[in-house]
């Protein structure tokens, strides 16, 4: 469509099967995640909320992941930095804001859990906890259920580089390998686990671990969202066609402190951080769209205005929203409708 034609054939996104609209949509989602994330940081600094944890510069690859998946059928098991991922899956800024403010209407947990603990059955986003890596065997379980039921679902799960050293990573991957389950394991390797640089977490390459489970392991540059899209799409393809799991290691970098409770300059230099800030792929991807004739500064200005409005609105709504009533604070330890078995 649009001013398509022969020129478009040369574009990377087209070759990957991404329509112009989707390529642009990806950008908008990345930018929405970025601005939401920045607002979260501001809110914490302003004392409006206690805590924020950031995914800044990890969003382009997160969004690319989301766009490579089938929102109707697949299962999503994100980790706490995945704002870009969950926004690409249909979670709204308002919902995220409700979670940031821990309000009762928050669909993730009714304000019970910390922000960044996503979950929405409607969006097929699986409820997550804080102890890292427990979601990896869960993803394998979702994939197992899909296989048993003959459903066309693929499970995709993300986790950090530090988290890949937990036993549950090993056990969840190996199980999926044995049974050739439709699951994609994604390590967002941002080269830190709180204060610990990658070399204190492991001497191996995380992607290489797949070899020991008998499935492909692929390392991909997180600053190249189209490449991430390609790799995840192919992994999805393999999974959906019965060829089993894939481990993907997305190379990225954590440019913020671990969370607002952390002072990262206690363990790394500003120079190191700045170096990586310079590699931010958000402006690069924007330029790509501009060069492809799909984006302009006018559109950018309009987008920024829209995003600001969305975030302002979400923020205002969430700030004013009510906490879960204390009468309800202890509900749902068990099912309330007694089943037959109770």
């Amino acid at each position, binding site marked *: 469509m649009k001013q398509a034609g022969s020129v478009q054939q040369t574009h990377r996104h087209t070759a990957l099967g991404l329509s112009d609209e989707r390529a642009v949509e990806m950008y908008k989602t990345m930018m929405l995640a970025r601005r939401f994330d920045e607002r979260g940081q501001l809110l914490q600094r302003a004392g409006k909320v206690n805590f924020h944890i950031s995914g800044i510069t990890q969003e382009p690859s997160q969004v690319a992941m989301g766009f490579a998946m089938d929102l109707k059928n697949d299962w999503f098991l994100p980790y706490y930095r995945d704002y870009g991922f969950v926004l690409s899956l249909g979670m709204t800024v308002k919902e995220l804001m409700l979670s940031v403010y821990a309000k009762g209407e928050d669909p993730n947990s009714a304000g019970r859990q910390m922000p960044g603990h996503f979950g929405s059955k409607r969006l097929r986003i699986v*409820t997550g906890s804080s102890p890292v890596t*427990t979601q990896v065997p869960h993803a*394998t379980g979702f994939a197992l259920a899909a296989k048993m039921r003959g459903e066309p679902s693929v499970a995709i799960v993300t986790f950090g580089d530090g988290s890949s050293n937990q036993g549950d990573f090993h*056990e969840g991957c190996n*199980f999926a390998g044995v049974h050739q389950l439709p699951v994609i394991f994604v390590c967002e390797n941002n080269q830190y686990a709180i204060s610990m640089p990658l070399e204190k977490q492991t001497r191996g390459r995380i992607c290489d671990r797949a070899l020991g489970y008998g499935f492909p392991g692929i390392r991909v540059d997180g600053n190249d969202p189209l490449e991430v899209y390609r790799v995840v799409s192919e992994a999805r393809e393999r999974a959906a066609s019965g060829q089993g799991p894939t481990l993907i290691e997305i190379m990225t970098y954590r440019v913020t402190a671990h969370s607002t409770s952390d002072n990262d300059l206690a363990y790394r230099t500003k120079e190191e951080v700045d170096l990586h800030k310079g590699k931010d792929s958000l402006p690069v991807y924007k330029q790509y769209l501009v060069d492809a004739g799909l984006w302009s500064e006018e559109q950018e200005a309009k987008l920024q205005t829209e995003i600001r409005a969305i975030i302002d609105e979400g923020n205002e709504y969430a700030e004013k929203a009510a906490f879960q009533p204390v009468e309800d604070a202890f509900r*749902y330890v068990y099912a309330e409708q007694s089943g037959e078995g109770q």
Partner: protein
Amino acid sequence: MPVIEYIDAIRLAMKEEMERDSDVFVMGEDVGLKGGVFTTTKGLQLQFGEQRVLDAPLAESAIAGVAIGAAMAGMKPIAEMQYSDFMFPATNQIISEAAKIRYRSNNDWDCPIVIRAPIGGGVFGGLYHSQCPESVFFGTPGLKIVAPSTAYDAKGLLKAAIRDPDPVIFFENKKCYRLITDEVPDEDYIVPIGKANVMREGSDLTVIGYSMPLHFAMQAAEELSQEHGIEAHILDLRTIQPLDREGILEAVAKTGKVLIIHEDNKTGGIGAEVAAIIAEELLYDLDAPIRRLCGPDVPAMPINPPGEKHFLLNKEKLKTAMLELARY
């Protein structure tokens, strides 16, 4: 009614529930061709195929974790831990995940798994094939825990557990497997989770417990009745989480004297909570201090026969304690 073994009751419950509901499946180490190390799943793979009776790699955290994922996806997994002694690698998945999924998501998600694990000693299994790990999981809201002592209850509780919308740990007693036989109807039935059962009516003292040691209490009670005219009232908790408060209080009120028994070690065991409930609610109805007769506070039982015997409860130990309490 047919009289069957406790282990057969467990197998039958799984078989019937798998026939009834195609979402039910069994997963664990050696559950397939071998039919489990105790033969609990024998024949099931033949009937239901490799997918629904799934041999899992030797990794308990994955067995629990994968089952939890499948349960969230809508399946009804029965995850087998080969021995309860080997379920500790799965603790994080059980306590941090299964127990908290409904609560943390404000009822958006649920986790209807059953985790079966054989408990108890007396089989020359030594330190790591004999343990009673109830206390580790007991203090965790969000879990249900059952521990049947009869074939009838084993079948009915396992069916209830499978149909339950929340995670249930099913502690089956490996000493009961072939030793305990009783009448089990052919018709479908469940034993409701959360309800204790009066095993024996009596007016002189109350014994409260669960799983294997109750059979020693029953034997002791018969002898006490015949030899001393002492009638013990015996309550089988059956479910240990949530405890049947009313059932407990009623049973204690009947006699005013209570002996709590279990094979798990005394300190921090289920018996402590039962005692605390009674001390909270029925203090003035008691005619004697609340007694507990439990496993000794040592890490686990030795494998050598005298050591094992020294560790375990038996009819004689029960009889002595019951007589003493009755005469108090």
